[in-house]
Structure formats: structure tokens, C-alpha cells
């Protein structure tokens, strides 16, 4: 397919580039960029992007695709549809599937199945320990050869400090990040939401912010000692932001991410026993939200990721304590980020886009993607900053567990192109 995107406002955060220009795509690559490109009319799809933003496709380093094993919640197909609709052209799939992504055959299965069914690029993340049990490390080198881009026991912490210590050491050979789900389970102690005023009112067992911070502190110390590559997933507290900021100042090799809900919502979202606000780590206080935004502004927080965690209606429509943790996020990530950080907080557009594109690419060493430049893969998103949408009207994910379902969001993805092929355009998917 040959595509010409005309007169779009191009943002390329990696090169701090912003101008109105045309982009010509042929095959799976970007071929030309320039004003008033003159091209043969034959077999050319022309997209008028006047007044819209043209961006490299987003990279989401924290998605739960649920396949294999939990296809009732999500599949590779529906999960990647949600990604395409949200302007995300590459996702990293977390390994807490069933079976877990801890052996070469399972990784190969995921890659092959994705080649057949996925609408966007899928890159697997392998387990740190077998079955995420926290006991025995996986064959990390072989998994890297099979195609994983990082390791994580996401959903569970690596409670054994010795294992974390050695894994940060061992992975240096393979140049992949260790993504830490930082949570001290003894401090969590059966908690289901942030410990504080709201948990007290609702009578729900609380998770103190210390449960996250104690583990973040431990992992920083281990990363400092080993010089391994540590990435902290879903940072949610002020204390974690402070610990990471200090560590970076000392030169520790550490990056971290947060998710849109941690800079948009507080623990109050759980009032009325709203299980669509039951997330791990939990939604915190106003003070924490402020600190997360500060961390995003001063560069302490490198990456915004969705932590897309689909669960069925039946699983969520239960007693609060029994409902699973997690919300979907792929379809709302860009709009929430645009609304909150760019419009409300007035952060620079390319500075924010770096957290959705440039920094994720750096973290996982992704080659030839994420830059709008000839001979790069044509992963492109056309975003209309003036168009509104209500998430529940048209959910692509198989699940609908989101606290944002009824929100009126500003900033909608019109078109998503993956590897030179249109997969989402004007409210329609193309397979």
C-alpha cells in the first residue's frame, strides 16, 4: 500500500521536531517527508491531516494481553485492536498469562500467534522467575534469544532480595531491563485500596504507600550495587518519586513509569465500592497525584504506560475484596495524557510525547521505529486534538473495566498505521 499523509502537524519527540509537512509511505516504510510532495496518483491513498497531529505510533511497555490462558478477559486480537484504537502501535505483553511467559516455546507461541492475529507490533516480556513464583529464575538468555525485550514478574513482586540481586547482575550480559513490580506483600497484608481516609470510611483493608516505597528503596539499593538496568513499574506514591529522584541524582541506572490513572484519579474514585477503581498499586491521595505530576515534569518519571489489565464484568461486579485488581487503559491513555498533562498542566507536547515514544524505545532498545524518518517502519498515528469521545460508546477491548467509561475525553485517534498498513481509520478496524 502507498499512503500520502498531507499537511499534518508532525511531532517527532525523539528529534524534537515539529512542522507541517507531508509524509509518503510505501510498503512498510516511511519513504519521504516534505512539503507539497508530488507523487504518482496510481494506487495512492491520500489522507488529509490538515489541523491534526501526526505522531510516531506510541509504545506501551506495560500491557496485559491475557493470552494465552485468560481469553475471557482479552485476546491478542482484541487487545491489539484496543491498542490500535488508542494510537499505540507497539505493545509489550506482560508474562502473567497461563502458562506464564517463562519458556522458549510459550514465547514463540505468542510471537507466532501475534504475527497472525495482532493489529499492532507485540513484543513479549519474559518472567523473572518460573511461573512468577519468586523461587527459581528463568532461562533469561534463551528467552532473550527467543525475542523478549525485558523481564518482569509483574503482578507479583520478587520478594526474595537475593533473587533480585542476582537477576540485576545476570541480565547485564543480555542488555535488557528488569521491570520491578514493587510491592512488599507483608505490608500489603490483604489490603484492597490505599490506606487512609477513604479506606477507613469504606471499612476496606488498606495498602499503605510504604508497601510500594520499601520495595522501591530495596531495588534502588540493589541496582546501585550491581549496576544492572532497573525499571520500576507503575509508580504511584510521592515517596517512590522522591526515592527515584534521589537515586537518579546519584547516577543509579534506573528508569520508571507511571500510568494515566495515577496522575488523573485519587482514592476517592473507590467511593461507593467502585471496583473499576480497584487497581494495584491503588489510587492514592491528592498529594501523591501532585508528586507524580512533578515527577513527570522534572524527568524523574520517564515513561507513561497503560498497565492495561482487562477483567470481565462478572469478575468486577463482586464484593470489593473479591474483585480482581486492574483496569483497561490502552484506549484512553493518549487522550488522558493530552488532557491532563498537555492542556491542564501545560507541558510541552514533544516533552510529553517522549514519555510515550522516545523513552520506551530507549528502554527496550527498539530499532527502526518511533521516529518519522525515511527508511523507518511506518508506525504512524493521526490524532485530532479537537475531537471528543466517550470511551464506553465504542470499546474495542473485550473488557470494559475502566473508571473513565463515562468521561468525555478530548483528543481522539483518527487513524493508526502499523508497518505501512492502515489498521484503524475513522472508527473502523482494517485487518
Amino acid at each position, binding site marked *: 500500500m502507498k499512503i500520502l499523509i498531507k499537511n499534518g502537524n508532525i511531532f517527532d519527540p525523539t528529534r524534537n521536531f515539529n512542522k507541517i509537512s507531508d509524509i509518503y509511505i510505501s510498503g512498510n516504510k516511511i519513504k519521504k517527508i516534505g512539503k507539497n510532495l508530488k507523487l504518482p496518483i496510481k494506487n495512492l491513498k491520500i489522507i488529509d491531516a490538515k489541523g491534526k497531529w501526526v505522531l510516531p505510533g506510541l509504545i506501551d511497555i506495560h500491557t496485559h494481553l491475557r493470552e494465552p490462558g485468560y481469553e475471557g478477559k482479552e485476546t491478542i486480537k482484541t487487545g491489539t485492536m484496543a491498542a490500535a484504537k488508542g494510537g499505540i502501535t507497539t505493545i509489550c505483553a506482560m508474562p502473567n498469562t497461563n502458562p506464564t511467559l517463562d519458556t522458549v516455546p510459550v514465547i514463540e507461541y505468542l510471537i507466532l500467534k501475534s504475527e497472525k492475529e495482532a493489529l499492532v507490533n507485540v513484543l513479549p516480556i519474559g518472567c523473572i522467575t518460573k511461573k512468577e513464583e519468586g523461587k527459581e529464575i528463568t532461562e533469561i538468555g534463551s528467552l532473550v534469544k527467543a525475542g523478549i525485550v525485558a523481564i518482569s514478574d509483574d503482578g507479583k513482586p520478587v520478594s526474595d532480595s537475593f533473587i533480585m540481586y542476582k537477576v540485576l547482575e545476570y541480565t547485564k550480559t543480555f542488555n535488557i531491563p528488569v521491570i520491578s513490580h514493587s510491592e512488599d506483600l507483608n505490608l500489603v497484608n490483604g489490603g484492597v485500596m490505599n490506606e487512609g481516609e477513604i479506606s477507613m470510611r469504606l471499612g476496606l483493608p488498606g495498602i499503605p504507600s510504604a508497601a510500594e516505597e520499601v520495595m522501591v528503596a530495596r531495588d534502588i539499593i540493589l541496582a546501585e550495587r550491581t549496576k544492572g538496568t532497573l525499571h520500576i513499574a507503575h509508580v504511584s506514591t510521592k515517596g517512590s518519586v522522591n526515592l527515584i529522584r534521589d537515586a537518579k541524582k546519584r547516577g543509579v541506572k534506573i528508569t520508571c513509569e507511571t500510568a494515566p490513572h495515577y496522575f488523573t484519579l485519587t482514592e476517592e474514585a473507590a467511593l461507593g465500592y467502585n471496583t473499576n477503581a480497584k487497581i494495584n498499586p491503588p489510587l492514592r491521595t491528592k498529594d501523591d497525584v501532585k508528586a507524580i505530576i512533578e515527577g513527570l515534569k522534572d524527568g524523574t518519571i520517564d515513561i507513561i504506560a497503560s498497565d492495561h489489565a482487562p477483567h470481565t464484568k462478572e469478575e468486577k*461486579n463482586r464484593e470489593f475484596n473479591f474483585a480482581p485488581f486492574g483496569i483497561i487503559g490502552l484506549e484512553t491513555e493518549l487522550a488522558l495524557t493530552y488532557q491532563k498533562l498537555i492542556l491542564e498542566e501545560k507541558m510541552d507536547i514533544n516533552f510529553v510525547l517522549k514519555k510515550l515514544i522516545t523513552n520506551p524505545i530507549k528502554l527496550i532498545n527498539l530499532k527502526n521505529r518511533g521516529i518519522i524518518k525515511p527508511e523507518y517502519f511506518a508506525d504512524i498515528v493521526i490524532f485530532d486534538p479537537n475531537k471528543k469521545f466517550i470511551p464506553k460508546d465504542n470499546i474495542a477491548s473485550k473488557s470494559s473495566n475502566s473508571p473513565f467509561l463515562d468521561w468525555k475525553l478530548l483528543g481522539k485517534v483518527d487513524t493508526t498505521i502499523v508497518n505501512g498498513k492502515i489498521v484503524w481509520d475513522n472508527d473502523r478496524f482494517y485487518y
Partner: protein
Amino acid sequence: MLEQKDLLELENLSKENIELILDTAQKFKKLFTKSVKKFPALKGKTIVNLFYEPSTRTRNSFELAAKRLGADVINIVSNTSSIMKGESLIDTGKTLEAMKVDFIIIRHSISGAPNLLAKNISASVINAGDGFHEHPTQGLLDLFTIKDKIKDIKGKKIVIVGDIAHSRVAKSNIFALKKFGANITLVGPSTLVPESFKTLGVEIDYDLKNAIKNADVINILRIQLERQTKNLFPSISEYVKFYKVTEDLVSSLDSNVIIMHPGPMNREIEISSHLADTKKSVILEQVTNGIAIRMAVLYLLSLFKNISKVSL
């Protein structure tokens, strides 16, 4: 009548509605403490006691209240451990609804379970205690008992002693009493009296003797004996040493001080046996008043649902 289908919590119940319940309860109390115990406003109606946690007094109190209103009552008693494998709460609720029950009175170990049930069925739901959330009829009967002794509780000092963190009784008491202007002090081991309670406008103390100074009411909570195994306090004997309310402690207070306990009591643990049986104690009156309150709640909710035509 109460302009609502359910009674789930006192946090959002207005002062006016609370007064209405107390006034109605007063009338019922007069009736059933005389010779005629029945007032058949709910004749032909069906009430289910759905108890997922062991309870004798609350369940019997609701059952008697319902029967004195002429309703038919069935009891379903289950333990929470069977919830995980068994039928979901919503399915249980819908099944009972299909049997055309009018009220479901639920006790559950998980906070918010009554809210979930109420949202998913059209029958009236009454919370008979959920997790660490609320126990609204207990809060109402405690308020009723206090107001029976002290007409205007504005500015009066009410001390609640014990495991506040895990007490639905404490929370319903706080919400109800605050609406009538009482000053509340919470006291207990610091691990069981979280700072977050200050946001409800109460005082916190960890020293029993200091906390009960000038108290008009002392409401003593039952200590759950299993909390010590979770390292929230070291031992029962240490708890007794620091937090048992004794006659000796109370003797320095105004002779009209009222001693309350929601029951069942652990005598000689949170309360001295002798104190429980003195004239200061209103513990048995609380039990009597509980029936009156529950009759009032059932009756007033039934008026909203237009299922009772009998006027009091």
C-alpha cells in the same frame, strides 16, 4: 417514611431521617413493652435474614422485630468461607427476589457487600453489619439509648473504647452521634485507632484514664480475640492491663455516666464483670431498644415501597 429503598449506612442518612426513626421506635417500644407485642403492619410480607457471619443477638433482634410487625421470616445462615466457592452474592439475591421476598437483611464479613446487593436487586436491603464498614441499626439503637438518658447530647462527651479500626459499630456510632453535636473521643491501642479517624471530627487518645475524664457515656467495644495473632497488640493480658474499663476507673466520673456495650461481652477483658452489672450499665436496655429500632426501620422502609398501608 424514609425516602429510600435500603438502609445501608448512617454516613449518608440525614439528621431528620434519624429523628424520624427514633420517634417511630419510641412508639413501637411503648407498644411492645406493654401487653400487646404485635403490630401487624407487615402482615403477608416476607423478610429474609441472610447472615454470612455468625450472630445471635442481631439476627434474633431482626427476627423478633419482623415477627412483631406480622411478617414471615426465614433465616439463611452461611459462613463467608463458603462464598468463594458457592453462589455469588448477586445470584443469591436474585434467587431470593424470584421468591418474592420484600426485605433482605444482610450481615457479611466484606465491607460494601450490602451496597453491592442493594444495587443489583429491587427488594429492600438492610445492612445488619458489613465488615469494618457500618452497622447502622446498632448505631441507631445506641443513639436511641443515649438520648433516652440524656435529652440533648450536643456538647456531651462520648468515649468509645477498643478496636476502633475494625469496628463497624464505632463508625456507625460516630456518624450518628456527630449529627447531633456530640463530642467523641476514641481510645484504644494506637495500632487499633488509626489517625485517619480524625477526619471524622473526633478526638483520639491512647490513654484510657485520660480519655474518659469528664465522660458522659462510655461505649465499650468487644475486642476480637484473634487480633493479637496478627500482631496488632501483644496479648489479651496486656490489653486488659491498659484498656479494661473497671468500676474503679469509672468511680471518679459523674455518677450519671452511662456504660454501654454492643455485646456479646468478654467479661473481665474489655469490661469488668461488676461494672457490666451496675446501675450505670444500660447494656440490656440496648437490647430492648434494638428491637424497637429495627421495627421502626422495617416499617418506615415499607412505607416508601408502599407495601404497608397501616399507619401507626
